[in-house]
């Protein structure tokens, strides 16, 4: 694996499988009576979050602590300096602290890429703007593999605000790399110009796609998109692209319903669907820790040289 985990787009098949296999081993560790491993003792992991995300930050923190790394939570919001200056300044601060890994969440696409050019340690992208969220995609793939036994050959449907979704981008590349067939379903306004170059099928008709779907992944739709005329009303969005009980019933029996959270219940997904047996929402949290442990181990567990 490379020194950084910045995107799934540049993650090769072998490396992706290595992360999933390692995560599987990490998940077994969680079954031991003592869950803490000495593996990363003496290593420092900095959670650098320019955007609030208690879920993701906590997940990385638990993962790092289970591996005995020292964890520093560095919340960089609300700084009076311009955001640009604070990123570079922060990078220099992290250098001074001797961070071995920086887990970076930022509202600007590509911010972790910039950070990676300024620090010596490994950078893990924990979500950058509307670009990527690679560990989320890895944990989604991990969840699919645990539930359905494979990723290769699965029909995965990603529904919602693909245009603004870093989860969608990371999943599209990773799932394609792992051999799944991906269909994205969204109103045309919420698909990027240039989606035709992605390794996906595009559909505007959720009902036509669901019966052939092994995994349906519902993306969060932010209500403020309405004001920018991406769709007329919440009700119309929900009617055309929401996963309600009747729609969920058209899925094959084995099909999974995934959601990266946080959910907008009622609009993009009905509560009864989100809480059904098909839903993986809860185990995704546990799987997130395993996958993040795997990533931290693979980035920091050796000498840093490719063996």
């Amino acid at each position, binding site marked *: 694996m490379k020194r950084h985990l910045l995107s799934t787009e540049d993650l090769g098949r*072998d490396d992706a*499988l290595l992360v999933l296999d390692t995560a599987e081993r990490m998940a*077994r560790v969680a079954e031991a009576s003592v869950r803490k491993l*000495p593996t990363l003792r003496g290593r420092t992991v900095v959670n650098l979050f320019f955007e609030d995300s208690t879920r993701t930050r906590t997940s990385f923190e638990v993962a790092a602590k289970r591996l005995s790394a020292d964890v520093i939570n560095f919340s960089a919001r609300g700084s009076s300096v311009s955001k640009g200056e604070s990123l570079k300044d922060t990078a220099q601060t992290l250098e001074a602290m001797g961070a071995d890994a920086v887990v970076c969440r930022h509202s600007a696409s590509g911010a972790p890429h910039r950070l990676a050019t300024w620090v010596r340690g490994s950078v893990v992208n924990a979500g950058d703007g509307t670009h990527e969220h690679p560990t989320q995609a890895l944990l989604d793939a991990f969840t699919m593999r645990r539930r359905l036994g494979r990723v290769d050959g699965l029909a995965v449907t990603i529904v919602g605000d693909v245009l603004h979704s870093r989860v969608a981008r990371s999943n599209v590349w990773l799932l394609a790399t792992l051999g799944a067939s991906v269909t994205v379903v969204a109103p045309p306004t919420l698909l990027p110009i240039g989606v035709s170059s992605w390794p996906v099928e595009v559909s505007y008709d959720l009902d036509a796609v669901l019966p052939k779907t092994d995994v349906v992944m519902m993306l969060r739709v932010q209500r403020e998109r309405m004001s920018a005329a991406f769709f007329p009303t919440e009700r119309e969005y929900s009617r055309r692209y929401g996963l309600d009980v009747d729609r969920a019933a058209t899925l094959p029996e084995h099909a999974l319903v995934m959601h990266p959270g946080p959910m907008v219940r009622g609009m993009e997904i009905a509560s009864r669907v989100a809480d059904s047996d098909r839903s993986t929402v809860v185990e995704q949290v546990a799987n997130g820790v395993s996958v993040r442990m795997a990533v931290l181990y693979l980035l920091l*567990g*050796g000498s840093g040289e490719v063996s």
Partner: protein
Amino acid sequence: MASAAASDPVSRRPGIARTVLSADDITRIVSRMAHQILEKTSGGAGVVLLGVPTRGVPLAHRLAQRVQAVEGVDLPVGSLDPTMYRDDLRLRGVRPLEVTEIPDGGVDGRVVILVDDVLYSGRTVRAALDALAAYGRPRTVQLAVLVDRGHRELPIRADYVGKNMPTSRRESVAVRLREIDGADGVLIVSPEASPTGAAAGPGDRS
């Protein structure tokens, strides 16, 4: 990042290899070790065999089979990957993790016998002892190894030794097992001509 597949570091190293144990030798040795285990544990009472991946795992299964054949006792067999407890992780590229499989019934109050192919510096065993502690508190922990090649760096001693094999640090010991390598055999590989060329020795197994 290391490749996920278990690799055989010895076969890729240039040098002169000589076979020191044949397939038949290994069969006889495993059989003897099984008898010793039965003797020392009063018929295998409360024993759990935990192989240290990679080649310790098939060895543990072979020992269990011999015990079954001799005594009719089914010993629980599992595997214990000590990688994440190693103290030398930073000395080389990241190591792929292996399977840890604790048999049903766990290890609390049991006689756990760790099984590995080669005992060298003792660091793997130390890590395995730490790993084991995460899964419970055995009554006794013992160690069985196919080959003891000496050069210990820690106060660790095996309870069951298949073969004591004096080596120099510059040599490597390669254990081949049919479950993994297709055939049984133990080889000693000496570095070619240059006395310093492979001074690092077999850093892989310890």
